[in-house]
């Protein structure tokens, strides 16, 4: 009851977090990625592409390309337009006129997601990667209650306080990797105006070329030189975290049963996205 009332107070002060229900404008630009897909790297690159003079820092990224899960509703309202917003949501048609969707090999996503949650304390330190994949990553049938916010350890750490900013139900749910990707691909795969689907692997291997596609799609009209600048600025964070994770880490890190499980559920989808299954044969 106390939490509900505090939420209400926050709502009236516009300090609540709207999540998926945030009111959108038709000129909003969305960057969407499943958690663990390298969305932070995309966010940094695109942010630096728009404003290479002021390279994004961990602090400023939340102000300049805020995500749906951390910024107060009132702050979203005050943002200059067109706003650029980051999200983990499944297909949301409302107000999503321009979407850049980042997809990544689910075997690497599993690994990255696992490490991210371990760091944030969102899973038990004793959980093995294999257990995680079997019981969390591939657990695809129970989203009745809030786990969108569970991805971030930061929210978990101050859960009581954070709960006061949220309604007592969920913000939205990224669902499973496959469902998230397929909801966007199924809805907009053939519409190159409303969806630009990028692969994380291409963003790492050919950042300039891939970022040029983003610039063309969003009609940013930036020069090739500025694209180069943005890539350089993103890399020159001066810390290890500024380098994107190398693709293919799953080959040495992901246990065999986990690979098998992921591939047996999503094999043909992975194939279609260019992530050839290693253990499961996909018939054409």
């Amino acid at each position: 009851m106390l939490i509900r009332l505090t939420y209400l107070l926050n709502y009236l002060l516009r300090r609540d977090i709207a999540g998926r229900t945030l009111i959108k404008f038709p000129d909003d630009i969305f960057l969407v990625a499943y958690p663990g897909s390298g969305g932070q790297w995309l966010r940094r690159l695109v942010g630096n592409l728009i404003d290479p003079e002021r390279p994004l820092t961990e602090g400023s990224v939340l102000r300049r390309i805020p995500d749906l899960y951390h910024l107060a509703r009132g702050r979203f309202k005050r943002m200059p337009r067109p706003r650029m917003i980051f999200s983990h949501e499944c297909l949301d048609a409302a107000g999503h006129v321009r979407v850049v969707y980042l997809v990544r090999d689910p075997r690497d996503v599993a690994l990255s997601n696992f490490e991210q949650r371990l760091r944030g304390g969102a899973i038990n330190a004793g959980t093995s990667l294999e257990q995680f994949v079997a019981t969390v990553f591939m657990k695809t049938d129970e989203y009745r209650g809030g786990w969108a916010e569970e991805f971030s350890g930061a929210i978990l750490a101050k859960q009581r306080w954070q709960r006061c900013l949220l309604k007592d139900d969920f913000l939205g749910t990224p669902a499973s990797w496959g469902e998230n990707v397929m909801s966007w691909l199924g809805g907009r795969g053939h519409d190159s105006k409303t969806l630009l689907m990028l692969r994380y692997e291409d963003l790492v291997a050919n950042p300039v070329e891939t970022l040029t596609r983003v610039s063309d799609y969003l009609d940013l009209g930036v020069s090739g030189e500025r694209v180069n600048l943005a890539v350089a600025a993103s890399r020159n964070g001066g810390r290890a975290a500024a380098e994107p994770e190398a693709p293919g880490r799953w080959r040495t890190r992901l246990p065999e049963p986990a690979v098998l499980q992921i591939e047996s559920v999503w094999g043909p989808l992975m194939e279609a996205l260019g992530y050839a299954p290693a253990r499961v044969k996909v018939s054409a």
Partner: protein
Amino acid sequence: MLRELVVAARYVGEREYPQRRHEIWPDDVFLVSFPKSGNTWTRFLVGNLIHQDDRVSFVNIERVVPDIAGFSRKEFRLIPRPRVIKSHDCFDPRYRRVIYLVRDPRDVAVSSYYYAKKMKNVPESTSIHAYITDDFMRGGDYNGNWAENVGSWLINAENAASFCLGNHPGKHASPWTESKLDRLGARGHGREFLLVRYEDLLHDTEGGLERIARFIGVDPDPDRIRRAVERSSADRMRKLEVAQSADWTTTKNSRTDIQFVREAKSGQWQHRLAPESVAAIESAWGYLMEMLGYQSVASP
């Protein structure tokens, strides 16, 4: 600020309309479709099938097969389970048991146009072609456009390649057969899925309702099905509409000179749509129509 106070007051009394954030249960069955795809008729069929002693009408339809967008949190919680819930939402991972109703988008376009006029959502002077290109095919609305809504529900891991840009499923494959419908639908992930084409339901209503009955877990007794079909006929629905249109939330403030229950037929687009409207729809959504067996007529 006033709006926020109203929302807050509603929230305290659990009178807000959470829609996608409603509490839902594993035994809920969702009757999902893009608007104007025969959803209301199917609601009548299902309602009359489940409630044999209580004839479905526009007065009680919201209670019998409730609309997820039409209830406050409190009201929604009070609906007895198991529930069959009507929804126009794009893919929602929380729906575990889904009946997806799909209809030829060219007919959906015709029906949407008259509905938009009935609801006074477009100026009287708007031509059907302008409506189709500027409203109907445009995205950005909550329910998505036809292709977004349908595609988000029909993709699965096996057929995903057909949804990637540049892949047109029918181009090099074998000719379309009814059995290809079995490849469609957001199955997997513990989800039960039943795809129903409106056209098939029109052609063989009893057969279609029998499939629906089995899916929901209702006894598919032939007499029971026949009775439900009779009680949901277009004639009866038209009569009910005349008597009750002012009482039903959907039609309450709409124009009465345009009927909600219209032709109840398929293929109306052939004499209602201009070739350029047909071409616009087919060139944007032909890949999806192809998967569903809705043959394109305009040249590619």
